[in-house]
């Protein structure tokens, strides 16, 4: 009997194809939007995770600031120093190496060309830690690092802007009225998973950066690479203890810094993506709701239009429940068809966008199933009211209806 009802519902839906299409348009758009958002969001999360893991699973990152980064940590947490970097290397045996890192924005000038770019203070150990090689010229010399000489290494984008395809090695660029000799060119890395250009960068020895650019001795981040095969969790605990001691944090007080491994960094970054995905999906879900109201509207119109038909059915022996089921099943079948079309459309959209954004296309069967069930539920909820109205019609009145 239920199959009979479904068959009749499909018949009724195709009897008025145009109206049916308009009815489900809202559902189609809503489901397609949700599916596309979530699929693209998950693809980009997968990409971020893969990117971060490429940095190496043995990398730890130290940043100042408490766990909650709120004002409760008592103002801005103080930065690290180069001495902290040395202490980590000297005192923690499982650490392979550690590198300071600080960053600001600058404008670099060469001849008539100039570019606004990211200026990073660090040293060769950073290049080792993140596995970034110099393809032209050389890295910093130990003497340049220790004395803070005015030398720099360029990223490929900066080189293209200032020098085109010619070699920048040995040339002098200007930043904030100070001059720096270009000694090396970094291998091109391309865009990060967030779309930022990783090659749009100039590197200075840390001491040079501190003295000539910032005028302080701050190290805003420390990258630590743990020896292969040793536990990053243990290194994390040891570094935390060491830094608490060095920063004179008494027992019971919270840390005013973070030690994160790459898994944590990845989850922090994907956290941002999933919040965005969540927000966008919520917006899309609202459009599903609007789609549901659209179904209700058209079903109500349909009930009015088919009043006479309902009268005939009641007269020839349909029970109120059978009429209710007929209209309810019609609404459900309609919204499920809308859901299916929406899923196909959403996946196609996501595949297209993933291709454009160069991220993996990662459809989630659970989300697809959920979207389908949700569209069916929309049919039940918004089909019920019109169906009940149909079932409650008085057959005599309905038959008299023009």
């Amino acid at each position, binding site marked *: *009997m239920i199959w*009979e009802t479904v068959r*009749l519902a499909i018949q009724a839906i195709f*009897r008025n194809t145009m109206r049916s299409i308009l009815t489900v348009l809202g559902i189609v758009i809503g489901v397609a939007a949700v599916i596309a958002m979530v699929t693209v969001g998950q693809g980009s999360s997968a990409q971020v995770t893969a990117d971060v893991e490429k940095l190496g699973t043995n990398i730890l990152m130290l940043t100042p600031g408490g766990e909650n980064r709120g004002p409760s940590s008592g103002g801005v947490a103080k930065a690290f120093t180069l001495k902290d970097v040395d202490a980590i290397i000297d005192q923690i045996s499982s650490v392979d190496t550690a590198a300071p890192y600080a960053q600001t924005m600058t404008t670099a000038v060469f001849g008539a060309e100039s570019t606004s770019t990211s200026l990073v203070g660090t040293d060769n150990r950073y290049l080792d830690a993140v596995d970034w090689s110099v393809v032209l010229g050389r890295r910093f010399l130990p003497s340049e690092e220790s004395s803070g000489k005015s030398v720099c290494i360029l990223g490929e984008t900066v080189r293209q802007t200032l020098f085109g395809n010619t070699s920048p090695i040995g040339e002098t660029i200007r930043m904030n009225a100070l001059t720096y000799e270009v000694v090396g060119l970094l291998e091109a890395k391309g865009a990060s998973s967030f779309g930022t250009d990783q090659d749009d960068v100039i590197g200075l020895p840390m001491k040079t950066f501190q003295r000539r650019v910032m005028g302080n001795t701050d190290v805003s981040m420390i990258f630590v690479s743990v020896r292969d095969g040793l536990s990053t969790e243990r290194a994390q605990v040891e570094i935390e203890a060491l830094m608490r001691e060095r920063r004179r944090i008494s027992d019971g007080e919270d840390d005013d810094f973070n030690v994160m491994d790459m898994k944590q960094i990845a989850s922090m970054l994907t956290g941002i993506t999933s919040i965005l995905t969540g927000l966008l999906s919520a917006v899309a879900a609202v459009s599903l709701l609007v789609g549901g109201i659209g179904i209700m509207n058209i079903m109500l119109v349909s009930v009015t239009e088919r009043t*006479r*038909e309902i*009268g*005939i*059915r*009641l*007269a*020839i*022996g*349909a*029970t*109120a*429940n*059978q009429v209710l089921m007929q209209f309810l099943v019609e609404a459900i079948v309609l919204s499920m068809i809308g859901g299916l079309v929406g899923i196909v459309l959403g996946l196609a959209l996501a595949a297209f966008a993933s291709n454009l954004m160069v991220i993996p296309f990662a459809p989630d069967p659970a989300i697809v199933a959920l979207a389908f069930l949700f569209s069916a539920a929309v049919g039940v909820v918004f089909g019920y009211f019109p169906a009940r109205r149909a079932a409650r019609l008085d*057959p*005599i009145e309905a*038959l008299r209806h023009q």
Partner: protein
Amino acid sequence: MPADKNTPVIEFRDVTKVYGQGEAEVHALDGVSLSITTGEFVAIMGPSGSGKSTAMNMVGCLDSPTSGDYLFNGVHVAALDQDQRALLRRNYLGFVFQGFNLLPRTSALDNVELPLIYKGLVGAERRAQALDALGKVGLKGREHHDPSELSGGQQQRVAIARALVGTPQVIVADEPTGNLDTKMSKEIMEVLRDLNKDDGITIVMVTHEEDMAGFADRIIWMVDGRVERTGTPAEILGTRGHRQ
């Protein structure tokens, strides 16, 4: 609900039906008592507004009296709930309306299958019964036509096929020929008469036309919500100078 020879299929006992209240009160039926036995072909006649359709709705268990009793096969219909009445219509009654009332954009066959769907019949059995009914009303070969592709007379035949398909005990027809010309009307009446004579289906029909009423065994003449007279067509129409 087996039809006992002595129990009338249809019995009105002092039935009234009042619409509206106070000033606007209309006594559509004003104390009607009548009974119809199995196998009868009855025509209800009378001026417009005399309560014929109201009485037919009651016969068809679509409506119940304001006062008095309506019994179908001896059962008090007023005591039945909505679903029970639906079952009663499904299993014992067939309807033919003045305006045909076929489902639009639905083939003749699908229209005739409709009551069988509610009876729970499926597949080949249902199809066979519907085709058989269409054959009885002379529509073989038109099974897949939409109502819009059929003449008025043909549409009414489809409606009759739909009414007779479950072999009901009673067919209720309210002005079945009201929208048809004389030739088509006669054909429809012949179909109804054959169903009555050959299949023993009780027929209760409203008509304005004396020619059509002439097909009935008995005429019930209503005026102002009351039964004024009842008798054979010769008795009722003959007094007005009409031959049968």
